[in-house]
């Protein structure tokens, strides 16, 4: 497991670099840390796990990486559903309703205060 801590502005650039290096996108995980969201993009490169970590404020907006990897669109939609994290320019945007329906609770995975 290899961790790379990055800033949210260089996310697209770093992902592009990894993809050009023949890495395979696995998934994206979001963790609620009170003030912040920690977003981890998991990649596999030569049978090794590479994590791109970025921390953003809860109000901040993240640019989608689905223009680089189409497969990431589902993961990003999922984060949007569960955490209410703001991600812009997702290739297929379900607007926070991919896994949740109209009647289901909003942002269920946020930690209760």
């Amino acid at each position, binding site marked *: 497991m290899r961790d790379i801590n990055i800033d949210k502005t260089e996310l697209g650039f770093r992902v592009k670099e990894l993809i050009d290096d023949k890495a395979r996108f696995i*998934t994206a995980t979001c963790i609620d840390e009170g003030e912040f969201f920690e977003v981890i993009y998991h990649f596999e490169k030569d049978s090794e796990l590479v994590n791109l970590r970025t921390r953003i404020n809860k109000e901040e907006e993240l640019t989608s990486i689905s223009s680089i990897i189409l497969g990431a669109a589902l993961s990003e939609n999922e984060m949007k559903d569960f955490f209410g994290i703001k991600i812009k320019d997702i290739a297929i945007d379900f607007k926070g309703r991919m896994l949740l329906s109209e009647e289901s609770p909003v942002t269920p995975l946020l930690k209760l205060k």
Partner: protein
Amino acid sequence: MPRITFPFGPQHPVLPEAIQLQLTCEDEKVVEVTPVIGYMHRGIEKAAEGNPFVNNVFLCERVCGICSFMHALTYCQLIEGLMNINVPPRAKYLRVFWSELSRIHSHMLWIGLLADALGFESLFMQCWRAREVILDVLEMTTGQRVIQSSCVIGGVRRNIDGELAKTVFNLLDEFKKQWDAISPVVQKDYTIRARTEGKGILPKEQAWELGIVGPTLRASGWAHDCRLLGYAAYGELGFQPVVEEGCDSYARTLVRVREVDQSLELAYKALNNLPEGEIAVKVKGFPEGEAAVCVEQPRGELFEYARGNGTPHLERLKIRTPTFANIPALLVMLPGSELADVPVITLSIDPCIACTER
């Protein structure tokens, strides 16, 4: 003929899964596809945060019915990684044995469903009949047919010894006999080949870029298999992943057919080389830190990530199931195909929507 938007699912006899594909068709040609999921989300990730971590094994098992053992195995390996638990070798071999049986029964189920989608009812029955033998072995050795609950953190709950092993070998031989009658049909039958060959092409480069996993990726010519990482006892047993170059539905069928043979071989090997000793170790303390683990499921790579904070409850458990990664493949494979091929192509990624919507 004008464009017709055609709802495929969420309740459809061919695809007993709650996924809706909105197909826009011109004549019988599909020009556009939008997958709609979210009909049965259960919030298992949230529930896992509220449970003590030891009990989550049984919860994770219920993510999917078909690969329940693998889900439990993944979670156990995740926690064992977090807490540095050394699993006794006998437990590792038993885990391999049950994993491979799960793989066989999942693939048999899939081949049956494929036959059913093709209108080949007799083959469907034949496949599920052979699968029943494997389910009998699972029931006999773990205590339950589908939700085995035999894998726990630190080892396994049941042992296979003496008399039982003999019965298991007999049943596996019985399965092999039945399987040998079916596998040439799946591989060579004219009507099956006519319906699958050249259907649902997933080009090699695109498969890797989309992050496709499992048999779908291997059918596109990539020798990618998480078992190569050598978890449980796979490192000692040794095997080569099954790879096909066809990139179409037929190649995906062949990969699964050959994997049944391979899994059977691995199951025999694991049971024959079962080391003596304990089957479980005691778990003490609470998980702390971060861990991620990949396990090869029948449908592909299962990825789990967890973060513990030194309490009995995990802070975050993330489960990425193989179908979740494989759904984008449909966006590439379906447009341009004929309506009659849609069920076959959709099935060829072996979708498990229950998994996807943990």
